[in-house]
């Protein structure tokens, strides 16, 4: 057995413990924030669908850039510049492998999912009469950019999230782009994405997938999915905020015009003209967030080492625990009662108690941090005449003990306040 392989296996053992489940206590050691106490109590962070916490490795990788080679990538040929270029190229390769893209040219660094989606919506050159199909459960990031295109006469149609029959009924010949979330941030449910992509391609429509909630939680293979475009963020997958990736099939991306132009996005320019760079540079105008990109790649390595299949199992196990307890308390869970269909998200409402109050009480009584409100899916809540929900979103660093404290507190709220 090679030394590299042995080291890899040793690392795996640390992660998985004896029962091939995540060794969460070991993982938690990588997150310095868990040493922090607020009002003498430990932090129970359950808002990872918004932003995940950052492991030490990610922070160190970013610091390394600032401390040892804080230079320009791609343009400066001095030693520090070359080092930065190497790191960025390596990061791109890591991200390519992370989503199993065919080429590094298909990985465009953005600042988040929103930027990726806006880049596609503006670069596709859709015209009056064209139709964009989105689901009824889209995050504002995958809804508003297409509403903006109505000015050009582009029509916007909506299908029911997760409902393939409804999707098919809306899939007319005019549909040029299907843009939808893989996994909903509202309730954690997922679209039958491979079927959606297949049907859309049969209709000659392109597919843009919002992978903000799926990429961090499960294995996403762009080649198996055969997706045209996929956008996701770094801050939801242990990476730094202000980082993201837009994947696009090379042949498609080559045909698209960039949204921004500037430094490093052109080969040459005159007072009247310019020559656009090749992929991926043509979509990355201006000096990039190098530290962030390096940190994002480190986060991807961290998740790969952990194993996203194991992560998914871990999240479902915890979700089942919470779902069972909530069902006993007759708490309404959005997205159904099957935990395996909701990954690490439990979006719920308690009768007579405002979701903001639930979040506030948990925060105050036990440092349990969850999100409340409409979770940037206002359209769905407004259509269903709901004021919002309380959302628990779990990640690798959440333990059964954390879930126990949450259940205990919810039971207390249920007993005392209802």
């Amino acid at each position, binding site marked *: 057995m090679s030394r590299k392989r042995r080291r890899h296996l040793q690392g795996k053992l640390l992660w998985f413990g004896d029962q091939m489940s995540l060794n969460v206590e070991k993982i938690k050691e990588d997150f310095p924030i868990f040493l922090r106490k607020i009002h003498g109590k430990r932090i129970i962070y359950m808002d990872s669908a918004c932003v995940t916490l950052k492991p030490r490795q990610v922070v160190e990788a970013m610091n390394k850039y600032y401390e040892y080679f804080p230079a320009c990538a791609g343009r400066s040929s001095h030693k520090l510049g070359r080092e930065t270029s190497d790191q960025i190229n390596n990061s791109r390769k890591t991200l390519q492998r992370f989503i199993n893209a065919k080429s590094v040219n298909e990985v465009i660094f953005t600042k988040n999912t929103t930027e990726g989606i806006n880049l596609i919506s503006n670069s596709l050159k859709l015209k009056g009469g064209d139709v964009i199909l989105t689901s009824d459960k889209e995050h504002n990031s995958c809804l508003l950019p297409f509403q903006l295109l109505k000015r050009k006469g582009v029509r916007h149609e909506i299908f029911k999230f997760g409902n393939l029959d409804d999707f098919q009924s809306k899939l007319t010949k005019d549909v040029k782009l299907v843009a939808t979330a893989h996994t909903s941030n509202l309730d954690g449910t997922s679209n039958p994405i491979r079927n959606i992509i297949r049907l859309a391609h049969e209709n000659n429509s392109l597919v843009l997938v919002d992978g903000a909630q799926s990429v961090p939680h499960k294995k996403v293979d762009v080649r198996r999915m055969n997706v045209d475009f996929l956008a996701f963020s770094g801050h939801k997958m242990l990476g730094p905020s202000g980082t993201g990736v837009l994947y696009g099939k090379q042949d498609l991306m080559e045909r698209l015009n960039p949204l921004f132009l500037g430094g490093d996005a052109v080969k040459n320019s005159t007072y009247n003209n310019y020559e656009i760079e090749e992929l991926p540079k043509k979509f990355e105008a201006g000096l990039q967030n190098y530290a962030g990109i390096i940190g994002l790649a480190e986060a991807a390595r961290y998740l790969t080492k952990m194993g996203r299949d194991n992560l998914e199992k871990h999240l479902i196990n915890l979700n089942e625990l919470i779902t069972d307890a909530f069902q006993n308390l007759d708490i309404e869970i959005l997205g159904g009662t099957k935990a395996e269909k909701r990954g690490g998200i439990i979006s719920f409402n308690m009768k007579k108690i405002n979701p903001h109050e639930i979040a*506030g*009480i948990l925060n105050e*009584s036990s440092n349990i941090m969850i999100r409340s409100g409409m979770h940037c899916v206002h359209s769905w809540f407004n259509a269903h005449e709901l004021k919002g929900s309380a959302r628990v979103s779990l990640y690798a660093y959440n333990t059964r003990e954390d879930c126990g404290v949450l259940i205990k507190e919810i039971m207390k709220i249920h007993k005392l306040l209802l």
Partner: protein
Amino acid sequence: MICILALVVFGILGIFSATHRKLALEAFECVFKKIRLQPCDSGLDKRLKSQITGKLMRKHPKMARFGYRHFEAVSLILTIIMIVSFVYSGLGIYNFVAYGNCNGESSQEACVYEGLGNAFKIDVDCESPLCQNEYCTCKEGSGCQEKEGDICKENCYGSVIK
């Protein structure tokens, strides 16, 4: 109702702390909206309610339940108490300024403002127009030679409120 309370409490705390100043501003916006019969959508009331309930739940669960269930009523009562105490404080200050005693004219009862001593008083001579002022009080043995009720007329050597 909690917004009115919050406005006053955070307004006072805001003199010393920037954090509370921000909350006071939020409370003010909330009160301003309520005056115009618009709903307060800042969520301040819910935040305060959940913070208070969460804190109480740790040690006094029954009190937390009572506070949560009757939050509006408790807020209303506290707001009324606050307004009433403001009115009485104002009256007391008026009485103290006018008669030197916060309990009213010719009252012998203890007054909390007496602790302030002569901080609000200045000496005037009999030429001062202040001596003709109805708010002037002449102390016994102060040298006032003529006095009608509590109003100093002339030759006043006593003290008046600033």
